[in-house]
């Protein structure tokens, strides 16, 4: 199983495996954030949601013995936190960003508080889908053993694009995010649409947390998230508010995260910590290159973050 036997291919496979495994939480939180932002609100509190989801999934999976009930619990916990956030940001003069940071503190506090008893025991994990069973190389087989939640995320990405483009409800969400006044004039309830979008988006974030505790890395600790939830906002900008591009962005971030560990596995540890920062540098560079103060970002919902 050591990386050196296949040399540099180990690095490539490691990064690829990282993209699939480490990219899944990025994918789910960014889809959740995408839905939220399409309705014109920002949820910076998805980090708290992610942690709460990871904790709930692990605890419930441990108690009931079924990881799938755990995934459901994670979605539910996310939805509850989302409802608090949605209520807060629906009030006048409440800033989305500040509310997100409040929910980040509250959500992670609750997750650490309630999760304290579950740090030790081991909970039943989600079964992997062994797409790599054909390969005789254990590294390839391990890399292709994908999470069922990854499959869910990929399906959701395409479903969400279809939803935004082809359904009445999807167009209403976009209308609410682009021009709330016009949506209101059409008889769409802006506040209700946003509430539903934030709650569903947070539920997705919670499910992303379930992937962390029930698949990879597959344990509940307080250090389980390395900021995937906070990065959701940046990922969505990176993906230009397009659910299918969220998939690409999440893979890229998952892969970038795995560069350091993969290089270390073949004995290159120089710059290990700098590589760990590479997803953030990448996002910043992309933002610098694509932002302009002469026009809004292509694809950005018109009323995003605007005070109501």
């Amino acid at each position, binding site marked *: 199983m050591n990386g050196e036997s296949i040399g540099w291919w180990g690095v490539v496979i490691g990064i690829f495996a990282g993209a699939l495994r480490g990219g899944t939480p990025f994918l789910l939180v960014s889809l959740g954030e995408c839905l939220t932002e399409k309705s014109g609100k*920002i949820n*910076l509190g998805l980090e*708290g949601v992610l942690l709460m989801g990871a904790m709930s999934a692990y605890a419930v999976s441990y108690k009931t013995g079924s990881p799938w009930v755990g995934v459901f619990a994670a979605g539910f916990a996310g939805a509850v936190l989302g409802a*608090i956030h949605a209520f*807060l940001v629906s*009030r*006048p*003069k*409440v*800033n*989305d*960003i*500040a*509310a997100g*940071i*409040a*929910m*980040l*503190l*509250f*959500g*992670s*506090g*609750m*997750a*650490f*508080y309630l999760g*304290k008893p579950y740090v030790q025991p081991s909970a039943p994990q989600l079964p992997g889908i062994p797409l790599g069973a054909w390969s005789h190389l254990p590294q390839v087989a391990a890399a292709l053993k994908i999470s069922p939640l990854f499959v869910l995320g990929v399906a959701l990405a395409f479903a969400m694009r279809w939803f935004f483009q082809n359904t009445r409800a999807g167009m209403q969400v976009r209308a609410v995010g682009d021009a709330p006044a016009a949506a209101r004039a059409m008889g769409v309830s802006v506040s209700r649409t946003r509430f539903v979008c934030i709650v569903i988006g947070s539920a997705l974030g919670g499910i992303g947390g379930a992937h962390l505790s029930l698949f990879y890395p597959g344990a509940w600790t*307080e250090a389980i998230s390395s*900021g995937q939830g*906070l990065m959701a*906002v*940046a990922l969505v*900008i990176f993906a230009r508010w397009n659910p299918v591009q969220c998939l690409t962005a999440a893979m890229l971030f998952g892969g970038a995260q795995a560069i350091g560990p993969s290089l270390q596995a073949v004995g290159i540890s*120089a*710059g*290990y*910590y*700098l590589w*760990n*920062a590479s997803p*953030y*540098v990448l*996002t*910043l560079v992309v*933002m*610098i290159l694509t*932002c*302009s*103060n*002469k*026009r*809004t*970002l292509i694809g*950005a919902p018109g009323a*995003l*973050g*605007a*005070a109501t």
Partner: protein
Amino acid sequence: MSQISQAKASVVPSAAAPSTGVAAPMAAAGGVNWRATLEAIVLPTGAVIVALILFLLFCFTQGASPAGVFAAIYKAAFGSWYSFQNTLVRASPLMLTALCTALPARLGLVMIGNEGALVVGGLAAAAAGLAAQSASPLALWAIMILAGMAGGGLWISLVGILYYARGVNETISSLLMNYIAIGVLNHLVNGPMRDPASLNKPSSFPIPDDKMLPTLGSSNVHFGLIFGIVCCLIAWVLIEHTTFGFKVRIIGGNIRAAKMAGLPVIRIGLITCFLAGAAAGIAGMVEVAAVHGRANESLAAGYGYAGILVAFVARHRGLPIIFVSTLLGGILASGGILQRQFKLPDATILVFQGLVFIVILFSDSLYGKFKIFKEARA
């Protein structure tokens, strides 16, 4: 010049910034609007009390006596001179990091790069301190403070430059830069700056023991408290009582009007960003020079994120930041006793912070809803 107004419109969430209470109505020139001042004191205080009640209810559901928990928090935070010293030690970095959010907030920018600015400031201070460790203590501290200010200040200025030059959203970029700062910190203390003697926790070489920042008199409180209070007072005077501060508040209130009036929006913005980062950089310097004695990952202990909370609770004003920091410092200091006495996990304090923040934000939406605070109309 014309790019500025569009910069405002082109970025994502900052358009909402003026609604955070950042651009709260200024007191009418000449006189102080006592009712508005009273409102600005009563509402946050009431919110903290409501949050405390919610928190005690939460403790009650967890089987801890609310009265007992309250008494324990009070005792651990403010009960004795000894415990109050502990509170003050925790309050001083909060005062400094809070300024990192509070100053740009008055410009209408939501800056959350406090943690990164603290880390970079601490790193710069440690590097400068190690390079100059043969200097006399006073000179060494001055060098370290300047290095910390320069490090943190330039770090946040970079966020400002990206914002003004490219319209890059300041909230997102400052958040990203927190992670980049921590990556750089880990890289340096695991590599170029590493003291081979630090095995379990990779750290830089230490500042000589006899040149650490001293404590005040016979107390346990170090000089960081003085830095914190002085910086908050300077920020208060600068923003509320100088022409520069007036310009900052105009930009925060209405950037178009500020441009029409010919204000140098970019220059004022960048100076404010630098000062904000410099304050957090001093916090990093204090952590290195008074607490840890070296740079290591303990620098990223969450003071930055707690500072955001302080800034919002204090409505981004220098003077209240001193009090709110002391309050939050006390709450942080009581974490240990809750753990020992009531078997409540240390995350209890995080839950409490979250509750306070949520209720405070909710209370922001209540401004102007109570008739008693309205100016009597002639």
